């Protein structure tokens, strides 16, 4: 096993990786930008090195600087986390060239699956269905493809992920503009302006399969996750196993994921994402060649530590798990806590956390990148923590999540906790098996009180609080002028997962 590991990331995922290393007696090397001297991952690591200024392009995305720290600290391996350089084949190759082990698949596999069109071609080559679509390299090709695919369709970036360079096009008339803006956005985000088309499926479910592959030819499917609870194509809440999934379909999905991984020469942890339509059909969507944000739900039901397994695989160890050793037990949920204001169109709300009370007790897991006194910076992703619960069945996991959300108090900044609490009261979600359009249909607006009984308590509490501490929000005419402008947050995030 590696004596030392560099973690080329920040936030909760860097903390997650540090924890895995500490349990394996691996020394951890954190890297950080100027905004992150006091960040939790810097505090918890055994070593920490400054990369550079706050912008990720000058710190967390600088391959040269990260490899220099690896050399300086003598770290023989690098874990990229998710986001940043995690799916960058060039980075994986540069690590190899520098004699440093990249914790992830070989750069070849990243390339084979990182290009969405290459991934689709690979899927077809092993008889895995893909969402109907077509290439759109030139305007002429785009026009032809659009006619074949039909409207509405998605324009998507070939090099893409996380919604960048993605446009929903309802009518042929809107196509030229959508192509133009999507190409520009893709060029800016990925240095590659190529786009392609995908048919928009009607109300599909998003189900993905966790893959684990070693360097000795063993490839395992560690069960699936349902990530259909999405807000504007961003995952909000995930669960394992996928509820009400037909066992035969589940087996087909696992089998398809294994075929894809084998065809790509995949090694280490990865995820094959699928869409399920209402008629029992399934379609390969894309591969994520790295650890997922939502990996804890798989860990909770299998009892495995995916990060430790990633490290073992990268160190050349052989996977010796029998199927009975990773069969799911019970059910797990994860809520992603974002520093966003669910009462104000989910605009990001960075700022200082003045109070933090985390839930505890049975079946609750917190993966957090923040602490009381920490100021959430504006420069990075707004995902600050994840709360996951496990139960003997889905119902117990749901009830535990409800309880955990009630115990979770993040003071000083708005978070999505009340939004999650509201979802956990939704009959359709509680019944299980909602599709990816559910949340946006059900919550065009912000969360709201679902009972009137305690309004007087709220009224009095606000007055008491205002009497104690004046500034913060405006109290009547003496406060700062209220803007008459409404803010509409356009979520064009580079969030991964």
């Amino acid at each position: 096993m590696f004596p030392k590991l560099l973690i080329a990331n920040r936030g909760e995922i860097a903390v997650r990786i540090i924890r895995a290393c500490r349990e394996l007696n691996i020394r951890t090397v954190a890297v950080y930008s100027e905004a992150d001297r006091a960040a939790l991952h810097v505090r918890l690591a055994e070593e920490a090195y400054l990369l550079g200024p706050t912008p990720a392009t000058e710190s967390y995305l600088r391959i040269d600087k990260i490899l220099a720290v690896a050399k300086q600290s003598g770290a023989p391996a690098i874990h990229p986390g998710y986001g940043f350089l995690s799916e960058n084949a060039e980075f994986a190759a540069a690590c190899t060239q520098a004699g440093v082990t990249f914790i992830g698949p070989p750069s070849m596999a990243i390339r084979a699956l990182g290009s969405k069109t290459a991934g689709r071609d690979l899927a077809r080559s092993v008889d895995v269905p893909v969402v109907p679509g077509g290439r759109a390299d030139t305007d002429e090709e785009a026009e032809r493809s659009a006619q074949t695919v039909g409207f509405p369709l998605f324009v998507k970036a070939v090099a893409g992920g996380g919604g960048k360079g993605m446009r929903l096009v309802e009518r042929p008339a809107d196509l030229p503009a959508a192509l133009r803006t999507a190409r520009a956005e893709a060029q800016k985000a990925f240095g590659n302006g190529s786009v392609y088309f995908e048919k928009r499926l009607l109300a599909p479910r998003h189900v993905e399969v966790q893959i684990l592959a070693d360097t000795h030819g063993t490839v395992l499917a560690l069960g699936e996750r349902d990530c259909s609870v999405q807000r504007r194509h961003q995952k909000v809440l995930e669960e394992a196993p996928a509820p009400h999934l037909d066992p035969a379909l589940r087996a087909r999905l696992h089998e398809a994921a294994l075929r894809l991984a084998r065809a790509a020469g995949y090694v280490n942890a990865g995820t094959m994402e699928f869409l399920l339509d209402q008629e029992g059909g399934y379609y390969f969507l894309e591969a994520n060649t790295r650890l997922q944000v939502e990996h804890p739900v798989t860990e909770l039901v299998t009892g495995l530590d995916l990060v430790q397994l990633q490290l073992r695989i990268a160190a050349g160890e052989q996977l010796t798990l029998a199927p009975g050793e990773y069969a799911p037990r019970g059910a797990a949920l994860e809520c992603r806590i974002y520093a966003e204001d669910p009462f104000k169109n989910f605009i990001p709300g960075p700022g200082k956390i003045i109070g933090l009370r985390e839930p505890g007790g049975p079946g609750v897991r917190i993966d957090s990148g923040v602490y009381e006194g920490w100021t959430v910076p504006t420069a990075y992703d707004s995902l600050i923590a994840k709360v996951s619960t496990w139960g003997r069945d889905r119902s117990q996991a749901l009830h535990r999540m409800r309880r955990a959300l009630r115990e979770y108090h993040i003071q000083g900044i708005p978070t999505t906790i009340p939004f999650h609490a509201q979802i956990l009261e939704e009959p359709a979600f509680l019944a299980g098996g909602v599709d990816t359009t559910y949340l946006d249909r059900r919550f065009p607006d912000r969360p709201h009180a679902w009972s009137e009984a305690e309004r007087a308590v709220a009224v009095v509490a606000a007055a008491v609080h205002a009497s104690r501490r004046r500034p913060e929000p405006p109290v009547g005419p003496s406060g700062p002028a209220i803007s008459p402008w409404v803010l509409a947050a356009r979520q064009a995030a580079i969030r991964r997962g």
Partner: protein
Amino acid sequence: MAYLVTSGGRTYRVDIHTDEAGVHVHLDDAAYPIDVLSVGPALYSILLDGRSYEVDCVPVEDAWIVLVDGQPFRVALQDETALPQPHTMTVTPKAAGGTVIAPMAGKIVKVHVAVGEEVAAGAPVCTLEAMKMENELTAGSAGTVEAVQVSVGDTVRAGQVLVELGDGSERPPAAPSAD
């Protein structure tokens, strides 16, 4: 200390008096037997008639979101001392004239308007990048741009004035609904 508090379409009068024994509350002029204890910077433990509540106060732009055992209520406050007719007024956010203010720190990546331009309600004014997201600031009402204080590439603080607008021909829409 007295407040007019609006929530759920109703306005309450809340009087707060604090002494060594704790916080005493009158609600709409009647003593309200509530036991309020601060257990965090913006967190209260409340006992009332045997019921126990855990209450978070979260500031939002023009009001508070008060979470009572996790359940959100939108509550707007007005300090009574500032009111001419405390018992008859309802709370309306000041919405006339106005400026577009940065709701958070970030970088200006686009400015959609120029001085003298007439903008319609809902029209984008500028785009602010923060936390890896582009946030479009749009006009809540029509108006005329009087000044543009920022350029593309500027880094702005939360609360910084970005664009100033003169009164448009239309009045701003009604105050945001409570809930």
